[in-house]
């Protein structure tokens, strides 16, 4: 119904979904190791080679933990919320091209699909916060709603410049358009900058982790979650990080493009990995702004900036 028909690429569904989940779990270990290295401490190093099997141990722990559902909360939505978050994030990978033709659904609305799925994930966070019937979770949910609605707006606007230059909403087309010209990180540097900030706000990682804000709201919207439901929320956060890095790679750094001595998906993976490390570095380095400061940054600076970027891109395209 979205204009694509059943084809061989559907065999990719299972490997992509599993691969993304496993990569997200390994990423938990990698982030902890990397932070440990930067912060003069060890990080997990006991399970397996350099602690690489830590995620297995974590998963076993999460699966065997008492799965507590708050009796004072709304049971149905409380259970639903983590699945919504995680499912929406994994669904977004449907449109991600890992190499030329390596995509489950190479649709002409891929960018919109990505935006739609990342918006859907907000529902999970919001429902989790409200269904917990906990004051910290409520505040976290409120913050999540306000923050994500704000950043949703110019997240879309910031990548419209890319769409205009490529002339397509299809991610494969966007990558191919960069093969002929320079990568869009140069002409769309403003868009890239805004997209990174908006993306961080969407993934609510440390500089923008206000919905969780450990030091203010204990754990924010997922205060009441335990066991594998908490595990799903954590996994979703890392899946979102991978997704964000994939999208930046595709739209601004030429996707799978690179010198031909290496296959395209290797180039793609390397770019994504570098971006992920960049985001981990940001988390280690930057403190958390206050909630209203984040809002005013969004509405007063980033939104006009992304509109101006759009205007300038359009003008240049018309002139050329």
């Amino acid at each position, binding site marked *: 119904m979205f204009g694509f028909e059943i084809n061989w690429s559907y065999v990719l569904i299972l490997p992509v979904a599993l691969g993304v989940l496993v990569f997200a779990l390994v990423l938990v270990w990698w982030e902890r190791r990397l932070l440990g290295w930067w*912060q*003069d401490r060890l990080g997990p190093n006991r399970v397996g080679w350099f602690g690489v099997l830590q995620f297995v141990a974590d998963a076993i722990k999460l699966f065997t933990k008492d799965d507590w559902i708050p009796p004072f909360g709304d049971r149905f939505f409380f259970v639903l919320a983590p699945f919504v978050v995680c499912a929406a994030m994994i669904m977004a990978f449907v449109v991600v091209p890992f190499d030329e033709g390596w995509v489950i659904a190479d649709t002409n609305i891929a960018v919109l699909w990505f935006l739609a799925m990342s918006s859907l994930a907000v529902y999970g966070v919001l429902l989790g916060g409200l269904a917990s019937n906990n004051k910290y979770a409520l505040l976290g949910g409120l913050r999540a709603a306000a923050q994500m609605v704000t950043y949703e707006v110019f997240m879309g606007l910031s990548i419209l410049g890319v769409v205009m230059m490529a002339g397509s909403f299809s991610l494969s087309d966007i990558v191919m358009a960069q093969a002929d010209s320079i990568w869009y990180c140069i002409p769309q540097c403003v868009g890239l900058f805004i997209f990174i900030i908006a993306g961080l706000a969407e993934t609510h990682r440390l*500089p923008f982790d206000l919905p969780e804000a450990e*030091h*203010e*709201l*204990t754990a924010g919207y997922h205060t009441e979650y335990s066991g594998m439901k908490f595990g799903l929320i954590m996994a979703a956060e890392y899946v979102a990080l991978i997704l964000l890095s994939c999208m930046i790679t595709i739209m601004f750094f030429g996707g799978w493009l690179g010198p031909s001595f290496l296959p395209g998906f290797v180039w793609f993976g390397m770019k994504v990995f570098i971006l992920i490390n960049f985001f981990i570095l940001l988390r280690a380095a930057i403190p*958390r702004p*206050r909630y*209203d400061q984040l809002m005013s940054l969004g509405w007063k600076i980033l939104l006009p900036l992304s509109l101006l970027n759009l205007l300038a891109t359009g003008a240049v395209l018309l002139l050329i």
Partner: protein
Amino acid sequence: MNEPATKLASNDPIVSDLQTRYGDSCVQQITVDPYPTVWVAREHIRDVLSYLKSDAAHKYELLYDLSAIDERLRKHRDNQPDSEFSVFYHLMSLSSDRDIRIKVPLQDSDLNIDTVEKIYPCANWYEREAFDMFGIHFNGHPNLRRILTPPLWEGHPLRKEHPARATEMDPYHRTDEFQREQQEALRFVPEEWGMSRASKHTDFMFLNLGPNHPSVHGVFRIALQLDGEVIVQAVPEIGYHHRGQEKMAERQSWHTYIPYTDRIDYLGGVMNNLPYVMNIEAMAGIEVPPRAQVIRVMLSEMFRVASHLLFYGTFAQDVGQMSPVFYMFADRERLFSIIEAITGGRMHPSWFRIGGVCQDLPDGWKEMVIDFCDYMPSRMDHYDKMALQNKILQRRTKGIGAYTTAEGLDWGITGPSLRATGNDWDLRKKRPYSMYDEFDFEIPTAESGDSFDRCVVRVEEIRQSLRIIKQCAENMPSGPYKSEHRSTTPPLKERTMKDIETLIHHFLNVSWGPVIPPSESETIVEATKGWTSFYSISDGGTMAYRSRVRTPSFPALQQIPFISNGFMVPDLIAIIASIDFVMADVDR
């Protein structure tokens, strides 16, 4: 053979001034410390205090301490008015560098006195504490309820008839019913604090922040009245860390209480020993050799650095910066390894002794100390770039939780938190003790008194403390590390096997501990978080009759509502982070 070591207090004209105004009921008492102590009748207390605060020749801006003494079992009360419970007020005038202690005699049958909360706002909590501990009723107090003990506690712990040891009580049993009652009594009821549950436009949310919360640095509860995320009113609740330090002082010998003092500000280590042992030395008339004094300064400053480093790291962490705390803990660890090499202990070495320190410095201490002093300054510059100069951190903390010097004094704020408002009062400079006048160091101040400035002052204090430590290491005097006075603990042993007299004294001083002549004395030091003091009363025994511990964190927490109302929850976290308190220091 123990002659009283009291001496006449400095002849302050304020004493005769009070005597002319309030008649002969104003009796001066002689204490070891240089602060004039005046007994005042109960009827006059409000007049006297408001006179001293606003109208006297030298204005006493700060109510430094307020508590009480159960005098009923005390034998040595020469020339003091008849009293069963004495309330005392320690006032300070920073502008003219003066103190005065006002005492009011009360009888057990009529145990009440007017509140002075209107004159000195910080009296609010001190009066609640005196009510909690002694059962003294303060007439007109807005909310006189227990503050340190649980709401349903029976008895008043610092009264002499209250048991001090578990062995004096029946075995402890806790029934489910008892637990339910206690928990129910802790429920926060907004109406009890004069709060409404809704205004014309909005229903307020009441949020219990703590007692277990990642950012309250221990067990501390603040009940917040929230309009959205904006704090309308806040009620700090303490007492979850109360161990009865003052009661324990009454059942430990003068010597065996030293380890307890380490735990008062558990980040301050030997810094807490210092006022305690200096106070006893003053009462016993012990001269401490210069080497011991400089060793004490060096160790105390090391703990100041360690405490401030932890403050710095958690401050950055509480505004959401993840990494600095790890670097600062690593540096603190280096410092602890030096402290461990010198004292054998890390956080609580209990290393100072009455009359000196526990041992002489070990071989190789100097290189370790100098190495550290050379290593730290570049680290501090690095941290400045990482944390203090970070724009987000500045935006989170500048203008948040600000107060002026006068407001700070009203609330009993001392130490770095007061110097952040521009006041340069540092006891190490103004009233040098333990040879601080021999050292070359500066007193950092800041202007606006907000959360950011409180951090800046402490960061600069680390640098100054490093200077002091280096001077200690380079100019360490030679000589004994402990006084030869007979009351030092444990007494020196060289001649015990030579003559029977020394052997007997040594035996008594080790087994019973030293006997301190009947006297009263108070010693204040510039501790890590502000001014810490011990006010000890000896009744001529081997244990304190009463030991008052005044700590800087207690009034600082009382001030939180005053500086946080109208801000948002994240600002409250920044304010809490900038106050630099530990709950052990609050509850004692």
